[in-house]
């Protein structure tokens, strides 16, 4: 009786021309889920690296004492909350969920509970993001988006936006050209505008060299549509000090602090 049953099953297999799923397809399917999980963790880590960069780059965190006066009118906590890069956290969360989905569909993924998998994914993203940020990956991505993707600026509150306010005396950007004889800098602002900066009377850090490719934070007065009189100049220390800058053909500007006394306005 039992033999009849199993013979019937075998007959059915032959009748339907059933074939086994080939091994390569099984391998491809398993590999796809691992790949999906891995790509998601890597993408999550890039999002986290950028989030960390954007948050840490905020002046109120590290340079609070230096430019304290710029933010006196704003409560510190409001700055903190405002400066959290929510968009990157959303991206991180999204890819963590995708990583969870991918891992859960691997051969033994079901054996691990959701909090463990999500926790491990977040931890991996964090560690990877720290590694990425040693190479300034977060900074590059953020800067690229700030300069090239208009909508990105609407989704995030960044230090670049704070330093794109020439009317109120804060101007930031990348040095295009330096002329130490005339004390002029040509600077490309974060909104793409080219500025002519006069730093004849500006207070400079003696250790800082103004060279082409360096990012600067300049306080001063807007004197024209594209001209700016600098009062103080500092380099974009935290994020760009590690970045290699193109060597300037001009002699780096060095000024003794007592040569040009600071004009406080």
């Amino acid at each position, binding site marked *: 009786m039992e033999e009849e*049953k199993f013979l019937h099953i075998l007959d059915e297999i032959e009748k339907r021309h059933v074939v086994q799923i080939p091994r390569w397809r099984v391998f491809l399917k398993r590999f796809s889920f691992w790949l999906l999980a891995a790509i998601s963790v890597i993408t999550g880590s890039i999002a986290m690296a950028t989030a960390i960069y954007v948050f840490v780059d905020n002046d109120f965190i590290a340079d609070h004492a230096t430019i304290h006066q710029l933010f006196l009118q704003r409560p510190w906590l409001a700055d903190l909350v405002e400066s959290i890069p929510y968009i990157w956290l959303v991206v991180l969360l999204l890819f963590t969920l995708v990583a969870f989905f991918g891992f859960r569909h691997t051969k033994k993924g079901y054996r691990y509970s959701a909090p463990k998998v999500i926790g491990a994914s977040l931890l991996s993203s964090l560690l990877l993001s720290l590694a990425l940020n040693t190479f300034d990956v977060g900074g590059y991505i953020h800067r690229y988006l700030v300069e090239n993707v208009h909508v990105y600026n609407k989704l995030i509150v960044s230090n670049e936006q704070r330093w794109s306010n020439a009317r109120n005396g804060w101007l930031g950007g990348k040095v295009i050209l330096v002329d130490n004889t005339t004390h002029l800098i040509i600077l490309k602002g974060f909104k793409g505008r080219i500025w002519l900066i006069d730093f004849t009377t500006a207070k400079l850090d003696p250790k800082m060299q103004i060279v082409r490719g360096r990012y600067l934070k300049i306080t001063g007065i807007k004197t024209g549509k594209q001209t700016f009189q600098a009062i103080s100049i500092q380099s974009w220390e935290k994020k760009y000090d590690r970045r290699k800058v193109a060597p300037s053909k001009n002699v780096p500007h060095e000024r003794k602090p007592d040569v040009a006394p600071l004009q406080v306005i």
Partner: protein
Amino acid sequence: MADRLITKEQCSAATDQELVAQTIADKHAFAAIVLRYQAPLLRYIIRLGCKDSCAAEDLLQEIFIKIYIHLNEYDPFLQFSSWIYRIAHNEVITHFRKEKHRPSVLPKDELLILFENLSDDADLIVQDGVKHTPTELQCALDQLEPKYRDVVVLKFFEEKSYEEISDILLIPQGTVATLLNRAKKKIKIALETSCQ
């Protein structure tokens, strides 16, 4: 036809992994797998709620065809029985979904097995010195949600370990333990209240 017949000695001598390897090379070796697992799988299908014997046998056939199709997906580090129970479980659940109905009443003889297996949980069966009957237990089981009933069936009917249940239902072992504990509590509450 004769070349497909496999003796019971041949079938019992080989391990599951060997039979799988043989089937991948020669499909006729699949007969040994069918012979070995058709009875336990049919019981499992019925225990999951498919009481119509014809429907159960049709389901069994579909399950074996699916096992045959996916044989290359079998991971030798996993117990083969867990793997085929997983396919059987999924196939039966899909069947119930198509039918839009999942019978909950277990056959009476099956219920007695459960009653015996649950007897080590003395406080579940005997409460306040009153021993519950299989009928009352059946009433309590009827009230269980499918996710709890699946675990109860695998644990107390199929006598599977937590690891095996985890492999069959594709859930972590911790979740198996949680579901089982909750199922027992729900059975206990049901026995105390509505099923008396």
